[in-house]
């Protein structure tokens, strides 16, 4: 009963067609990149080039997910940078650990 009362003074806005279309476009891009990754997995020989392509495509996908779906692109610049800058530590962790791993494989 109280429920029906509430519903009367809620104004539902019409769907934002343009925004929804944009979201589906992003979804399409993510799908297409995944499909291309899938094709590359079976056509290119394993090596630094293949790995580089995969990493590049993954970063593009990550950019779309974080920027569009998580809306980070449209947030205030301070928030944007305080999320992105700490990721430098992850890059450093990656470089240091892979370097270490190769060193271990040479000792073994």
């Amino acid at each position, binding site marked *: 009963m109280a429920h029906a009362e*509430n519903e009367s003074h809620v104004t539902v806005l019409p769907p934002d067609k343009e925004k929804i279309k944009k979201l589906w476009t992003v979804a399409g891009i993510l799908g297409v990149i995944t499909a291309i990754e899938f094709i590359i997995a079976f056509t290119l020989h394993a090596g630094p080039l293949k790995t580089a392509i995969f990493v590049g495509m993954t970063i593009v996908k990550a950019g779309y997910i974080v920027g569009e779906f*998580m809306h980070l692109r449209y947030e205030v610049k301070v928030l944007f940078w305080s999320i992105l800058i700490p990721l430098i530590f992850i890059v450093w*962790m990656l470089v240091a650990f892979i370097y270490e*791993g190769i060193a271990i494989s040479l000792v073994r």
Partner: protein
Amino acid sequence: MGASYGKLMMWFFLMSDAFTFSALLITYGLVRSSHKAYQGAVDAFTFSQNYWPIPEKVFESVPFLEGVSLPLVFVGIMTFILIMSSVTMVLAVEAGHRMDRKAVEKWMLWTLLGGIAFLSCQAWEWTHFIHGAHHGSAVAEGTTFFGANLAHNQYGPPDFAAFFFFITGFHGFHVFSGVCLNFLIYFNTVTGLYERRGHYEMVEKVGLYWHFVDLVWVFVFTFFYLV
């Protein structure tokens, strides 16, 4: 920072979670690069304890198609399921901005369905991984071993299965938590809690978490299955 307290805290939580997942994936990289890689033709590849397996040779099964070699097809399907559920989540957030309760309910249901479908796929994949393929493979003790546990596996060095269980398991646990949170959001939408509150910000906050889970899967897909 132009964001509400709740959203800001969600971002900071996701930052810390990103570090946890990076630690797991980077350790995978370290251990993998410290093992011998398989040299030779991909077609002639056989499982061995002496080198790291090629992932596409391990994950080549699809339900109901036993014995057919379809490398990475099932993981590809899982990836699409998760991307789609991310889209339906963002559509729920969009509907929340417009105070459209019916649309939020609809899109949250699709998101829930996607999450549950993903978890089901993962349950099948784990079962298959643990039980193993027909031939099995010889382990150090000279016996044939089928499937995988934390100590041995037929696919390669013990670390391979350990990382599979840990990384996809930790991600799967995140998906499971996400499904629980999504259900809570759906429930609160249906009971009209957010309508009475006057905004659907909770949908947005849980949406951030759900997209993050999708984001992590994008990285797991690349570094565990493709590379």
